């Protein structure tokens, strides 16, 4: 039952393959540099690309850059949830709660509009503080789920995902309830003040944060902890019997995942200068999960790309499909009457279902994931044809 990917014997794709392998090896050996260089390239190329049609016809470059900065928030969120769901196998449906905690932490620490407190803690240290606070809540909210099986864990995290925004909404003496906290201070870097009118500094800051987080995520994946996460995901009992402390391992997954969401929250608060409970609904948790699943659970770059694609589709493409199919565009009779923006969650749902049925490993799967999900089906073939000769004997005591 050995399923080996690779070139069939006899094909001579030596040249391209050899070069690709060499580049892969180089990248694997110096991963941090690859990440940094990669992001520098992407970050410089994207805004320049937006000066060309058809992108330039959708919206001007400044709006694109602003959109990229916002997409970056979701990339960060997807990277974090990927650690929890993809690495450790813990299905967290309430991830937006930690996003909210990060955002509110910064807003409470840096807004002049609250009646009961008025601080101006600078943005950059608050990034770390927000991450730390979110991490702490990751542990607190993760602790009750430790003994629960997958489905139940999902429901409980969903419950927390509802409770946290509800608390922020109802504790209006502290959080200003449904109106949210406004006037949040924008970042200030060595005297340069970020403004709402110029998205470029936000964009650059976000790219830097993402690059750093990615480096950390990869390091974790390849570490003793990363292996422990994989082991727990594969077989929790066997992991415990091999010496892995499943409690701390799972809590670390929650904590580290939550800290990333906290980072994203602080950044969002500083960029939008307003936080309110409705920014953190289940729809947001669901969107992030969709990004992780569609991008390829477990694959760091895949998840980032998936998040970017999904966000861009949601915020730009869907809006563009209306004029595209409408009167001034192609004028397709049935499609022109559909408001695609309204349909977006319907499409998400459909995409998710189709993904799970046809390509559960996502668009950019990690090779490991592909092996997991597809050889499963091969094993079932063995069942239909008779007992697999290499399968284990029936259980005795």
């Amino acid at each position, binding site marked *: 039952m050995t399923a080996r990917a690779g070139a069939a014997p006899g094909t001579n794709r030596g040249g391209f393959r050899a070069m690709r392998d060499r580049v892969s090896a180089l990248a694997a050996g110096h991963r941090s540099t690859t990440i940094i260089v990669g992001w520098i390239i992407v970050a410089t190329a994207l805004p320049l690309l937006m000066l060309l049609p058809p992108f330039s016809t959708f919206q001007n470059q400044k709006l694109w850059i602003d959109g990229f900065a916002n997409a970056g928030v979701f990339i960060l969120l997807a990277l974090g949830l990927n650690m929890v*769901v993809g690495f450790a*196998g813990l*299905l967290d*449906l309430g991830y937006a709660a930690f996003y909210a905690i990060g955002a509110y932490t910064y807003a409470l620490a840096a807004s002049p509009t609250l009646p009961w407190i008025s601080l101006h803690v600078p943005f950059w240290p608050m990034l770390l503080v927000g991450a730390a606070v979110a991490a702490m809540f990751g542990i607190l909210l993760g602790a*009750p789920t430790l*003994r*629960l099986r*997958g*489905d*139940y864990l*999902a*429901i*409980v995290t*969903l*419950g*927390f995902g*509802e*409770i946290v925004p*509800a*608390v922020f909404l*109802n504790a209006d003496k502290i959080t200003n309830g449904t109106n949210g906290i406004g006037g949040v201070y924008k970042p200030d870097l060595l005297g340069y003040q970020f403004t709402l009118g110029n998205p470029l500094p936000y964009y650059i800051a976000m790219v830097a944060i993402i690059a750093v987080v990615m480096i950390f995520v990869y390091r974790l994946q390849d570490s003793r902890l990363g292996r422990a996460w994989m082991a727990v995901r594969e077989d*929790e*009992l066997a992991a*415990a019997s091999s010496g892995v402390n*499943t409690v701390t391992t799972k809590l670390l997954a929650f904590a580290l995942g939550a800290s990333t969401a906290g980072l994203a929250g602080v950044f969002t608060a500083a960029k939008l200068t307003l936080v309110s409970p409705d920014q953190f609904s*289940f729809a947001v948790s*669901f969107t992030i*999960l969709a990004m992780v*699943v569609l991008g390829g*659970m477990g694959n760091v770059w895949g998840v980032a790309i998936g998040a970017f694609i999904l966000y861009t589709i949601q915020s730009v493409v869907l809006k563009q499909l209306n004029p595209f199919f409408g009167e001034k565009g192609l004028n397709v009779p049935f499609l022109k009457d559909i408001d695609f923006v*309204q*349909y977006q*969650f*319907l499409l*998400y*749902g*459909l*995409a*998710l*279902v189709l993904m*799970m*049925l046809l390509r*559960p490993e996502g668009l950019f799967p990690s090779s490991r994931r592909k092996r*997991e*999900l597809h050889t*499963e*089906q091969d094993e*079932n073939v063995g069942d239909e044809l008779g007992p697999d000769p290499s399968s284990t004997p029936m259980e005795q005591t």
Partner: protein
Amino acid sequence: MRPDVVRVIRPILIVAVSLVVAWFLLGGTQQFMNFLTLGAIYALIALGYTMVYGIVELINFAHGDLFMFGAFVAMWILTVPLGMTGAVDDPIRLIVILVVVMLPTMIFMGLLGTFIERFAYRPLRHAPRLAPLITAIGVSFILQNVIYVLFGPSPVTVPQVFPLTRFDFLGGKVSYLSLFMVGVAIFLMIALQLFVSRTRLGRAMRSTAQDREAAELMGVDINQTIAITFFLAAALAGAGGTIQGLYFGSVQFNLGFYVGLKAFTAAVLGGIGNTTGAALGGFIIAFIEVLATQLGYSRWSEVAVFSVLILVLVFRPSGILGQQLGERA
């Protein structure tokens, strides 16, 4: 007293006493009827969750949305083909209308549930646990947003076909509507219980839930049994949706999310996989919710229900009527 007499009398006594206590705590007949109706709705939905979980070990995320969908189907039948707009006085005509609304709704929802199982869940029966869970979430979103696209985001009114005449009972007003709703729900629950325990198909369901391989070896058609389970679960959810629309007078696309979560809490509270437990859990959750509203904490009622869920899962995951689950890993 003879033991079998005691065995029948004791649960009836417990139920009766609990109802009286509930009536007192809720402050009278008005809220008591709310509690009964809400409990009936939650019980019907919880039954669906528990039946599906018992047989395929899957929490059907989309189940709450089946309830919502059923409510809309019932509303549509009532308003479009039947063209109802207001109260109907003739009791016979009323009953006919109700049957014409509820029965097709239940059948349609049952078929929809089977359809979903066949095309979205069955292919993933052997996949790692995460896959069907994610699919169920996807289905949930599809159901919600189909309604959203068709009917919009705002609540849609359901015509009040029941005459509003009420009669006095112990200081409050009880409408025929509430009595009927609760009666229908209890009838359905008993019918389900009898079906599961007395019929061949019911036996097939129970044996599949216990040990799927053994049942298959005994000749049970697993696919058919699972399909029937989903049919029944969805049909019950449809019945719940009909009651919801008729009693509360309005339906909305996101109804399924919260009601579904509360009903799921009820199923877990009663003991997942246990049908009596689901019914019991439904009424307990309804009681908590109505009590919270009565005491003025309606804003926090959702938080309260979720907290119950989390506490139950952490401290007694097998629920009230379930068996003790295994030890730790």
